[in-house]
């Protein structure tokens, strides 16, 4: 069995290729209504101490498509944690009822703590502002699937990079592709933590931090839009100002390359004008769908079923 805890453990071309290939096969099989029932007799526990829609439902849908059963803690208020049970104790108990645990938790490092005491594989479905490796993998998978390649692309992140955990998980994966050029767009207060910048620098990956997207819009291949969390701003005026500069609409599109791609961490709130959705470059709904197949591949990977 393999715990899935961070992006770093997938910083290996062979593993990535294996998971992406599996995801493609599962997608094709599912299109024919014939996803293999490889989880038959297995139970997947989705344990969410923090709210989620896409992540939990895509794991549960994936488990069911693969013939597995699902047990779920969807609302932390209804779980034993509200009675003061420790994460470690909860994991030991849930591991007795299930064959694999998909965990989301508000604290950084929670997934690793859970893995330390778990007798079944733990999949990190987001721990605090630390990591969200399954999303990072399908982000990368979506880029590969949509643009046919990853290396050599120019990728801009326009989001709250301090807290956006899938971006943190993506950093070690990006280090595999030596000709990438990465741009991090946003105010210095929300900049990518230094440890991730050091990781990129050590791998020799070109990256730049910019306050505004405008100057590079005509150059980039991927625009990755994230959420800006209002609660993280002390100054309302500052938030309102930033909100405008992070807005993607048809004017943004008009300045982008025809064969570029817009992704979004989802859920979308105000960041992308719904009028953009009809453009072929708007890849975020396809990206969300890709999440299902990559997560199916990851369930199988964690359980050594390949």
């Amino acid at each position, binding site marked *: 069995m393999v715990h899935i805890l961070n992006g770093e453990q997938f910083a290996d071309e062979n593993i990535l290729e294996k998971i992406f290939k599996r995801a493609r096969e599962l997608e094709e099989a599912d299109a024919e209504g014939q996803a293999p029932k490889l989880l038959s007799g297995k139970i997947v526990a989705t344990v969410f101490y923090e709210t989620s829609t896409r992540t939990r439902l895509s794991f549960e849908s994936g488990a069911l498509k693969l013939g597995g059963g699902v047990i779920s803690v969807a609302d932390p208020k209804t779980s034993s944690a509200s009675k003061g049970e420790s994460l470690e104790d909860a994991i030991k108990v849930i591991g007795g009822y299930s064959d694999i645990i998909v965990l989301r938790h508000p604290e950084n490092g929670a997934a690793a703590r859970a893995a330390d005491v778990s007798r079944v594989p733990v999949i990190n479905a987001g721990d605090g502002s630390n990591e969200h490796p399954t999303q990072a993998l399908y982000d990368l998978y979506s880029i590969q699937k949509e*643009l046919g390649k990853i290396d050599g692309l120019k990728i801009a992140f326009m989001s709250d990079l301090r807290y956006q955990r899938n971006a943190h998980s993506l950093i070690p994966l990006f280090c595999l592709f030596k000709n990438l050029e990465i741009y991090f767009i946003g105010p210095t207060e929300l900049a990518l933590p230094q440890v991730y910048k050091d990781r990129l620098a050590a791998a020799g990956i070109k990256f730049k931090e910019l306050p505004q997207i405008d100057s590079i819009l005509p150059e980039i291949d991927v625009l990755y839009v994230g959420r800006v969390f209002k609660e993280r701003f002390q100054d309302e005026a500052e938030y309102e100002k930033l909100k405008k500069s992070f807005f993607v609409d048809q004017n943004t599109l008009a300045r982008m390359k025809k064969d570029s791609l817009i992704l979004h961490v989802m859920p979308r709130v105000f960041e992308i004008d719904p009028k953009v959705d009809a453009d072929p470059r708007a890849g975020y709904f396809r990206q969300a769908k890709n999440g299902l197949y990559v997560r199916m591949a990851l369930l199988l990977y964690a359980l050594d079923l390949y």
Partner: protein
Amino acid sequence: MLSIEGTIVNSAELKRSRIEIDQVTGLITKVSEPTGVADILFKNELIFPGFIDLHVHAREDTSHTQDYKEDFTTAGEAAINGGVVAFAEMPNNPIPPIDDASYEKKKELTKKCPVEVVLYAGIGPNTKPLSFRAPYKVFFGRSVGDLFFNSLPELETVLAKYRGQYVSFHCEDPEILEKHKNEPAHELQRPPEAEISAIDFALELIQKYNLSGKICHVSTLEGLEKIIKAKKLGVNVTLEITPHHLYFDMEMLNEGNRKIFQMNPPLRRRVDRLKIIEFLKNGEIDYLATDHAPHTKEEKEKGISGLPHLDTYGPFTTWLMHEHNFTAEDIARVCSQNPANFLNNFISGKYGKIEEGYIGSLTILSMEKPIKITKNILKTKCGWSPFEGVVFPGRGVMTIIKGEVKKDER
């Protein structure tokens, strides 16, 4: 004598030079170091050996029944507008050029064309080679016109007579097309496997009958990979790609544009398109050839296949340079030099390089003047473009035909 100075692009270098063209012979007489004084002085513009389009349907023939949508005059004007200095023209006419007499008669019509034209001769169920050298075109399955075969064995029987000739193939397997003819959408009626299977067969025929083969408008990644593999094994084959298979894909089709974007072979998947762009850049694909098919908008509404392209050939190449990182040398290779290597087999002069002794036809592009494609800038008689509304990052600012300035938009 016409003298021009600026940055010239041969397929291996980019160099500021002086070019002199003799307007009587139409040939380049000298390429030398720049002096700062010339009839025409360019700054940052790129001077290419004239672009050559190896796949044009100009529609005019001796029946003149299709002159309402294009003729050799308007096709030539559209070519000049798009920076194309010569083209090779397809034979699927109401009266197709399939023997010496019909070929010569059609050739007469090309004399009024302002750019050089080489005609393909058609291969049909009962044809045999002409008595002189010409390129040939064979259609496997039904497309536009009557030059097609109902089965591959029938095609092979005829093609056996063309041993050693230059044969270009439209690859769609008629039997696979027949099987899918009742599918609900054009792209489903002409599935990838029709092209892939026909490419297999074409490669086999090319080897068996020692042909100089050319595969037209490849649209599938799998078909493309088969041809590239064959080339590496020494098969005498080259291949064309169209602007529409590089720019559009089936994922952008909707009920509103489906009829406009109907062509054979049809649009394919986006990811395949992006891979094909890489193959063109890397030198695996030989020619950017348009398959210019000037049908009227009314005909398009009725469901005829093909798109007009000549007017936008030059601007389109600026998109490849600007958005897909093609170098000017890459463009010279697939738009000038490689097509010239094909065309030069059938004419007296030489295209493809800016060097002494070569034909003095040049295409000059500016990467500093974007252009929005609208109906009123087009010269094609059919009067529309699939790129209407698109802003290309650069444009053709001058086209020179054998020493004569035919377009000047500096």
